[in-house]
């Protein structure tokens, strides 16, 4: 019991320390600093030993070792072995590079960006140190445009596409209707509901308890009804509720549904 407690305490202690390292470069910089050695003349054997000890410690603690740490361990060992080889004197003009040079460059560069990062965060950050009016002024609200203003980024475009695809699972369409309700049945159900209520919320047709097949059948029924021009599906505002209306009923159709005339070629949605 005592033992377990002790080990756990140890583990926690190490974990705290381990989390400080962002990666192998971070760890190496730490070791160099701790040993107070010249970064241009790293005692590679000693540093490699300490690095491997640290890996060993992680392993003993049963902690995951990220692949990058192992790659670096291999690199260090490789440098160490190259340091042991005698320098060939044959071709004088091509100066042989110190095996450590590449690593030193990486470490220095990494350190440079790490410092730049802390310089960045020490600036007067908007929302932390300085504040701007990050809300739509009431003066503008009265004359606001209908659509949300947005500087759109490529990433947002992809995210929008991803969201669409996640809503429509393509393979769910392949195994429809093995048992349960048919599209034709569901169509008449939707129609009779619409007959009673004139307009329906899209969400109302999907209940929590519905199985996947019924969801798909319902969705396909709506598409079919659209195709047959028996219903209209409209969304008044972005992210707002989606409504179904029977096309025979004129009144309740929101404004932005007046597009048919602009798309004669598309009027008969078909395929």
């Amino acid at each position, binding site marked *: 019991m005592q033992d377990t407690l002790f080990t756990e305490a140890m583990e926690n202690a190490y974990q705290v320390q381990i989390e400080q390292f962002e990666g192998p470069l971070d760890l190496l910089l730490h070791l160099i600093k701790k040993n107070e050695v010249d970064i241009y003349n790293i005692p590679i054997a000693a540093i490699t030993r300490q690095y491997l000890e640290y890996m060993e410690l992680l392993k003993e603690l049963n902690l*995951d070792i*990220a*692949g*990058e*740490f*192992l*790659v670096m*361990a*291999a*690199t260090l060992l490789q440098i160490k072995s190259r340091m042991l080889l005698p320098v060939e004197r044959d071709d004088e003009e091509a100066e042989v590079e110190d095996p450590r040079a590449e690593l030193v460059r990486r470490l220095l560069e990494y350190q440079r960006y790490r410092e730049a990062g802390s310089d960045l965060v020490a600036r007067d950050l908007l929302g932390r140190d300085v*504040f*701007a*009016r990050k*809300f739509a*002024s009431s003066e*503008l609200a009265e*004359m*606001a*445009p209908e*659509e*949300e*203003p*947005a500087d*759109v980024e*490529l*990433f*947002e*475009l*992809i*995210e*929008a*596409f*991803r*969201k*669409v*695809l996640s809503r*429509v699972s393509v393979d769910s369409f392949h195994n429809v209707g093995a048992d349960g309700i048919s599209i034709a049945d569901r169509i008449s159900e939707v129609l009779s509901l619409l007959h009673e209520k004139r307009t329906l919320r899209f969400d109302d047709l999907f209940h929590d308890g519905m199985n996947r097949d019924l969801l798909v059948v319902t969705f396909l029924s*709506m*598409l079919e009804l*659209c*195709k047959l021009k028996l219903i209209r*599906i*409209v*969304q008044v*505002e*972005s*992210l707002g509720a*989606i409504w179904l209306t029977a096309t025979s009923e004129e009144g309740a159709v929101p404004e*932005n*549904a*007046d*597009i048919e005339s*602009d*798309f004669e*070629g*598309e009027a*008969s*949605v*078909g*395929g």
Partner: protein
Amino acid sequence: MAGKSLKAIVESLLFVHEQPLSLDRLALILEEFERADIRQALEELVADYEGSERGIVLVQVAGGYQLRTRPEQADYLRRLNKTKGVKFSQSALETLAIIAYRQPVTRAEIEYLRGVDSGGVLKNLLEKKLLKILGKKDVPGKPLIYGTSKEFLELFDLKDLSSLPTLKEIQELAPPDPFADQPALPLAAEET
């Protein structure tokens, strides 16, 4: 030194707060100051803004104080809205995304993917010249087929359509990793 006085503090609070701030609320926030001093700071600020040739005034509304633009400025402010450039709703973005990635594509295909009528959005995107009609599809009904335009590429600063990032590339950035516990072997080629 600027910015340290109570007046400056009150001004900055009024500046960043969306709703009017009452004296009570200010006194609560600025607990180390006297209520009377805060009141005086407010009065001075009202006078400062009123007196000089300013675009902003400090007014008393709805039981509090609020910085507002002068009514004379309304015409100019309205222009700000007009020149906001291309605007995107979520539905426009979705539609644009589908067309960008699935072109050539018909309206029916777009609506199939989105699950909602997309005529209005399409019209809007065509008007903004972000889309173009590529022709008619050779199927019954001869539906129009859509693609993205040169302006689309310009908007997103893309050289050509092949520079559009794929969904896969984004998903690869941070995939749910089923092998999280298995570190890559150090033997593998250094591909990081």
